[in-house]
């Protein structure tokens, strides 16, 4: 008897393929505010520790309330689709590490509250680096717990041993060789994305003062290049931490896996190259092109993530095809969702448009 739970007697409300697409798209959406929040906090800790009230720190403080709120909000949707598509794996993994998983909630709450405390009381704080550091550590721990659940849910052959070793729910998935490189890869990725966004933001929106523009662009580019190059070290470690059969699929034995890896590596290298060449040309378009290439990397990496999960599950439980569960599509409610999404996005754009217009009116260029 396999340990993987039976499919729910209630069929899936949409074909698994559609759910995978929704999962993928909403996860990509989640990446943007998540990267800006984590890396922005990291930047603030460094900047506050140096007591330098630089314009980037100021900018980070201005967007953090929104990016943190959006990280949580946009995180809900991919989690919803994961739970439907991979519920049998996901619920099992979370119950195995129940207390740790439950602790996400208080950690998030405290990290969020400390962040607001810092933003509102910054002037009165004796060590202003401490509050963002607390938020950062708590948020990183939350990310680490997600990495634990994600790896544990893809390792069904371990579950029974894990459950029996501690049925009270304090387990983590620490013996997974991919856990640390995976976490580092994501964190460095976030810092790199933050770097390029900072540079692009500086070159595009901060046009009132040449010194400010320079600091956004030079610091942002430096962060982007440094952390992307670091990821060129961590990435292979992450890849080879997987079982050999899976690792080699990205190195030639599987066309899609290999193609995606080549595309994402080349795009990242191209973005690094363009960022360097910006130092000479000073053309805004070059930075924008670097941003576009980084987006290609993120899109390809998102798909790689999906492949790794499928292959890992297949490696652990060869006879179970998790996504082939009975589906009875519910097109009416799906259409309602799509229409609501369209109306919702238009509304959000409308609100945000007025917000930026008011900001533009306030800051003379």
């Amino acid at each position: 008897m396999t340990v993987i739970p039976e499919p729910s007697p209630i069929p899936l409300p949409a074909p698994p393929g559609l759910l995978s697409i929704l999962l993928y798209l909403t996860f990509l959406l989640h990446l943007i505010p998540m990267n800006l929040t984590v890396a922005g906090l990291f930047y603030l800790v460094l900047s506050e520790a140096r007591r330098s009230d630089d314009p980037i720190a100021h900018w980070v403080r201005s967007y953090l309330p929104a990016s943190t709120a959006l990280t949580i909000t946009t995180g809900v949707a991919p989690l919803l689709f994961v739970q439907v598509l991979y519920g049998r794996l996901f619920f099992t993994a979370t119950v195995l590490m129940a207390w740790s998983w439950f602790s996400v909630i208080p950690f998030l709450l405290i990290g969020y509250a400390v962040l607001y405390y810092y933003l509102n009381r910054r002037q009165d704080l004796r060590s202003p680096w401490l509050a963002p550091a607390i938020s950062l550590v708590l948020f990183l721990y939350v990310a680490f717990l997600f990495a634990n659940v994600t790896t544990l849910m893809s390792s069904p052959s371990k579950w029974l041993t894990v459950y029996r070793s501690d049925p009270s729910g304090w387990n983590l998935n620490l013996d997974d060789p991919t856990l640390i490189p995976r976490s580092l890869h994501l964190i460095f990725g976030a810092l790199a994305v933050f770097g390029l966004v900072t540079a692009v933001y500086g070159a595009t929106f901060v046009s009132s003062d040449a010194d400010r523009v320079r600091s956004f662009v030079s610091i942002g580019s430096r962060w982007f290049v440094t952390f992307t190059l670091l990821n060129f070290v961590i990435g292979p470690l992450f890849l080879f931490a997987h079982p050999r059969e899976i690792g080699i699929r990205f190195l030639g034995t599987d066309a899609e896996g290999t193609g995606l890896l080549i595309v994402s590596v080349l795009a990242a290298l191209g973005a690094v190259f363009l960022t360097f060449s910006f130092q000479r040309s000073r053309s805004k378009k070059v930075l924008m092109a670097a941003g576009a290439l980084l987006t290609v990397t993120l899109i390809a990496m998102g798909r790689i993530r999906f492949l790794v999960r499928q292959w890992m599950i297949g490696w652990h439980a060869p006879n179970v095809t998790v996504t082939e569960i009975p589906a009875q599509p519910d097109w009416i409610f799906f259409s309602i969702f799509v229409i609501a999404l369209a109306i919702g996005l238009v509304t959000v754009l409308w609100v945000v448009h007025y917000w930026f217009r008011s900001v533009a009116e306030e800051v003379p260029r």
Partner: protein
Amino acid sequence: MNFPIWEVPIIGGGMLIGLVAIPHTFIAHLAIGGGLFLPLTELMAYRRQDHALLHFLRTATRTFVLVVLVGGAVTGVGIWWTIALVHPSATSSLLHIFLFVWATEWVAFLVEIVSALVYYYGWDRLRPDIHLRVGFIYFISAWLSLFLINGILTFMLTTGRWVETRSVWHAFFNPSMMPSLFLRTMITLALAGIFVLIKAGGVTDSGLRHRIIRWAGLWLMIPAVLMPPGLLIYLSTLPPSARHLALGGPAPVLLVLVATSIVLSALIFGFSYWGAYKRPHLFSPPLAFLVATLAFLTTGMTEWVREAIRKPYVIYGYMFSNGLTIDQARRWQGQSLVSKAKFTLAPTKPTNDDLGTEIFRLQCSSCHTLSGYNGLLPLIYGWDQEMIRAALNRLHRLRGFMPPFVGSEDEKEALVHWLWKQSATFPGPPLHNP
């Protein structure tokens, strides 16, 4: 029996859900009522050119948005986390039925968060008419979020025709959906009033303070009048057995909770009419906090009752609280439960005690602890094995809120013996032999 079991010590899984859900319910309802109060009062203030009132609204927005964004969003996600850990099978079923309702709710949530942020940071920045529009967008999206979640929540208690048709329409527009939506909308107004009563305490200009207190008092009057008939309609839509439970039936403590929450509600509305509305000059911050505490207790009790009267089900008429569906319970009658479970702790050749512990984990632990909250040992204290066996044999007929025992005769015997052995260690009052 699909998933591993998480035993929450001392307080049990149900209480843990309550500890997360009750604060969330309180904040989430406030988030909606406040979302109407702020732009509506802002509109009023613009029309009357009341700058002092506008200033008050600006400071109130800050607290409001902080509570809603930080507390509301995270505890909301927290409920989802907790129910999935305690009731993975039920959560999975609900997700399969309502996936796109939930996804639509997520859209409303997204709009709600973005507009809340822009409304807050947009004071003095956006043109008044735009600012107002953003405020109303916030309210509409927040209420839509309630509309959608309420359908899922009420479904768990009144599954209605879904049990036969399996139609999502029948599931969503279930019998108690509309009355519950009405009641909850009223609660949002009342909580907004209470929130403003508290915030008004910080206003130094006494004229303004009295005006705000009177206006907030009015927000409590409307629910005071409309909620009692709404409650009666709601009760009439409940399954008879659930109504029976709510009105005392086999668990008198529930009737006490229902009665207390009615008395507390009456007190809240009494304070707000004779206090806030009639004598705003006498209405002090401590009184506002008292009203807020009463409201929090009422929220807690009513949500608790709603959860309790759903027993023995987690999804009424479909799945029992321990995750077994009615169908499974019927099919597996007399068969070994441990052999059906994917995750067991018992070794291949279990002792009687291993088996007893296992059956307790699988079948009882989602609601009961051993000697903590809703503990079994106090319930069977002084019973001999014969009594425990007799109870297990007719569990579902005993008092109406227990599911049937599922498992083989050996497993039942193991549980009887194990419970009896455990109960001997329970320090209860002295027993008298006749």
